[in-house]
């Protein structure tokens, strides 16, 4: 397994730096897939197939989970190939047909896979033009390409189509030189906003998700679950379930499952399984976790340092010491994890809702004792991911059960299982000491984050004496350290770590601005040299119609900015705080983002709107409650994600630089939401909320404290 993974990884890196194999062929796609499974490795990197019907198949290991890359990747390929968008077929996340990919996360698709795909498409176009030159008997320089037709510039009637060029040909070419990509001025398809390619099948219900796949003879599995993390099975009685007709009971290596070809019968069978579990040892709970995170952190890793903290302390006229906190947050996609596995002598095929088809394939292979090339993972549409579908427990369960039963098995988690096995965004603590000199300039920044990683902790503000430390380094890389700190597994959640870090940084900036008697935008600009960050902040406040005022102004307007995934974001929002109940409502948000080259402006706006709305959840209501390894919130009845009444009006403003490389789009706009709302609540009431989520109860408490002080 490792050998193959390593080879694939090296090949991928080769692609990213410009060595691209473009396969142009005729014939059925599945035949090529078959060949590739056993063929020499360069074929693994085939990104494009130009059919003799003129249709272009784009192959990518990336998956579509709502973020819109099915459309934006198709735009990139169509642009560089010079074909119409309608000629593109996307094949995504199929490990037999697509080039290796590490997974869809980190807002990396457009900025990392995008250039590789564009280069492959540009090279394919060059090959086709060469073929056309031979076919038409004129030099390349005298040819024009438009919408998959190559014609002689001076005699447009002399033409040949890509379909005609591809017919009967099977060319393979490894590209040595970096392909020449189109410039923004030449774009016909990129930089525009066609309708989402997945829109039609999603509004008609034809779009397939993992739980929608059916195979003849398939079984539905229900798996016995512990009541709490850390529980062990003491007693088990499956006799009543076994007595039911058609029920298969599997008990192997800790996996206890009942299966039936009728889903309802599988449910009934599970209800007849009786089990006893061990008590869970004493563990932290929702409130005691913060002390545990700090005391349990053995080492702090310094990730940035400037000047000397002692010098900062002695220059500071005022010191601000704060502790910020955030609880565990669930991914809570509306589609729970699901998989269907079929295992035969020839190997395993698993349809899975996963953000990481290739790593999932490798883990399934390892679990079943197969070679990775004998496992095929097919990824249908995902009903939301947000980082949570990087873990693939359901796919491994389905594969194990299918191997044991010799029949196809579906494992589809119910909502309670989805909450229980969610690898939450970790709870975290930030301890922050900052100082202002007598002139209102920041001279000290002493920052430590516990429980989560460093992403978002390094800011752009100009501070002469600074130290930034993190208890987990790098973000989630140290699983063992993470595991010893947190009472259950945690994992990447949309911009992992950054939501906590930006909340702390931008709350502190706001607090110091108010103390300095300067409005929060001017205060930030005084400490910002980065031109792109300044431009984005100024764009956001101008679009909002913000007027300077020292906080708390009583208006309820908050500002926050950050850099994440290579992009620059600034959010300005307006809230109202109902003093009697402590309820905060966010009515309007303007979010400006500079993500470099924008492939699909409306797609980018969708991500800003979606991230902002999702961010309201971790900011106001979302916190997983737990005790003794038990997850207490296992339903949408008690775990509140944003609803229509809560969703603000979001105005997305793109600050585009079409001549700069594309940067991440899906994650950056969520990072600013917590601080923006906290700062707006402060602006409205004078109360500073240092803990997320800012539940009505906590707001009421903070209001009482604030009024006691005055």
């Amino acid at each position, binding site marked *: 397994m490792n050998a193959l993974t390593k080879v694939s990884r090296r090949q991928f890196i080769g692609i990213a730096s410009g060595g691209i194999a473009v396969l142009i062929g005729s014939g059925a796609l599945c035949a090529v897939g078959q060949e590739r499974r056993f063929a020499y490795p360069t074929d693994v990197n085939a990104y494009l197939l130009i059919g003799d019907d003129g249709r272009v198949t784009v192959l990518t290991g990336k998956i579509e*989970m*709502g*973020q*819109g890359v099915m459309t934006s990747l198709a735009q990139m390929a169509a642009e560089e190939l010079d074909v119409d968008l309608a000629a593109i077929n996307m094949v995504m996340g199929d490990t037999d047909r697509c080039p290796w990919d590490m997974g869809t996360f980190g807002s990396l698709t457009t900025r990392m896979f995008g250039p590789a795909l564009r280069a492959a498409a540009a090279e394919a176009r060059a090959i086709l033009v060469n073929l056309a030159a031979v076919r038409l008997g004129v030099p390349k320089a005298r040819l024009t390409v438009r919408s998959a037709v190559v014609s002689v510039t001076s005699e447009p009637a002399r033409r040949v189509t890509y379909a005609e060029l591809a017919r009967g040909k099977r060319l393979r070419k490894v590209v040595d030189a970096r392909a020449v990509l189109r410039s923004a001025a030449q774009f016909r398809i990129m930089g525009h906003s066609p*309708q*989402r390619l*997945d*829109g*039609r*099948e*999603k*509004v*008609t*219900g*034809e*779009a*397939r*998700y993992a*739980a*929608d796949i*059916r195979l003849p003879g398939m079984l539905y599995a229900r798996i016995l679950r512990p009541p709490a993390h850390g529980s062990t099975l003491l007693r088990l009685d499956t006799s009543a379930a076994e007595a039911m007709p058609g029920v298969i009971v599997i008990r192997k290596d800790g996996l206890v499952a009942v299966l039936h070809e*009728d*889903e*309802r019968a599988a449910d009934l069978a599970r209800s007849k399984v009786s089990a006893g579990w061990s008590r869970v040892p004493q563990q932290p709970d929702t409130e005691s976790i913060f002390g545990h995170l700090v005391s349990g952190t053995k080492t702090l890793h310094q990730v940035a340092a400037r000047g000397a903290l002692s010098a900062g302390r002695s220059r500071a006229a005022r010191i601000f010491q704060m502790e910020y906190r955030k609880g565990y947050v669930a991914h*809570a*996609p*509306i*589609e*729970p994890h699901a998989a269907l596995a079929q295992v035969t002598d020839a190997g395993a095929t698993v349809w899975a809702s996963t953000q990481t088809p290739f790593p999932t394939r490798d883990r399934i292979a390892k679990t079943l004792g197969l070679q990775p090339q004998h496992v095929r993972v097919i990824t249908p*549409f*995902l*009903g*939301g*991911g*947000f980082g949570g579908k990087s873990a693939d427990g359901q796919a491994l369960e389905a594969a194990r059960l299918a191997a044991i039963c010799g029949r196809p098995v579906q494992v*589809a988690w*119910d*909502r309670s299982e989805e909450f229980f096995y969610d690898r939450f965004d970790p709870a975290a603590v930030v301890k922050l000491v900052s100082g202002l000199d007598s002139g209102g300039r920041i001279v000290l920044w002493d920052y430590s984050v516990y429980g989560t990683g460093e992403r978002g902790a390094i800011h752009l503000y100009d501070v002469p004496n600074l130290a930034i430390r993190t208890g987990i380094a790098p973000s989630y890389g140290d699983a063992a350290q993470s595991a010893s700190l947190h009472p259950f597994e945690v994992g990447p959640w949309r911009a992992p770590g950054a939501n906590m870090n930006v909340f702390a940084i931008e709350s502190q900036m706001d607090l110091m601005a108010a103390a300095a008697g300067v409005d929060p935008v001017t205060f930030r600009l005084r400490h910002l040299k980065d031109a792109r960050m300044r431009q984005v902040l100024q764009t956001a406040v101008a679009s909002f119609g913000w007027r300077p005022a020292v906080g708390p102004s009583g208006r309820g307007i908050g500002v926050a900015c950050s850099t994440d995934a290579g992009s620059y974001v600034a959010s300005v929002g307006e809230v109202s705080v109902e003093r009697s109940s402590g309820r905060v409502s966010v009515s309007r948000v303007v979010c400006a983002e500079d993500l470099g080259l924008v492939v699909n402006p*409306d*797609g980018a706006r*969708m991500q800003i*709107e*979606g*991230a*902002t*709305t*999702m961010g309201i959840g971790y900011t106001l209501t979302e916190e997983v409650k737990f005790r003794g390894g038990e997850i207490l919130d296992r*339903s*949408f*009845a008690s775990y509140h*994600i*944003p*609803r*229509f*009444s809560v*969703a603000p*009006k*979001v105005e997305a403003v793109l600050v585009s630089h079409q001549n700069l490389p594309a940067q991440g789009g899906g994650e950056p706009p969520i990072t600013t939401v917590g601080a923006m709302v906290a700062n707006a609540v402060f602006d409205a009431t004078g109360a500073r909320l240092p803990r997320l989520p800012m539940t009505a109860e906590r707001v009421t408490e903070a209001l009482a404290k604030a009024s006691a002080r005055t």
Partner: protein
Amino acid sequence: MAQKLAFRVNGRSVSLDLDPERTLLGVLRGPLALTGTKYGCGEGICGACTVLLDGRAVRSCVMPVAEVAGKEVVTIEGFSSEGRLHPLQQAFAERGALQCGYCTSGMILTSEALLRATAHPSRQEIRQALEHNLCRCGAHQRILDAVADASGAGAQS
């Protein structure tokens, strides 16, 4: 325990031997192979499983199939005819009122029930009608826009 139950789905008569306590969602996705209706929570909270029952929006994940006997069920598969999209489907696609698409059929069915009862709802009425349909991707404002478009009223906030 199975009994014969007859009802109509998307204009078609069906008659099946079913455990009457089985959920309508299970029957739609299982024996009827209509997988456009989604499981999201199994508790009637998220709305991904919404279908029309005699024109009303109901949560199929908590509805025993016995209650459907003799009635008319409409699922998302019954919306487009001969390749022509229903105005709500058209509006959702045009507005980009979806991302992952998993809540979409429930959103469209709930909106259809609203529009059948109130031809030109205000934005607030649309918001209220959809309040108990969950969307995790944050497509809310585009969904409101799409329903307003489909109602032909161009409702404003």
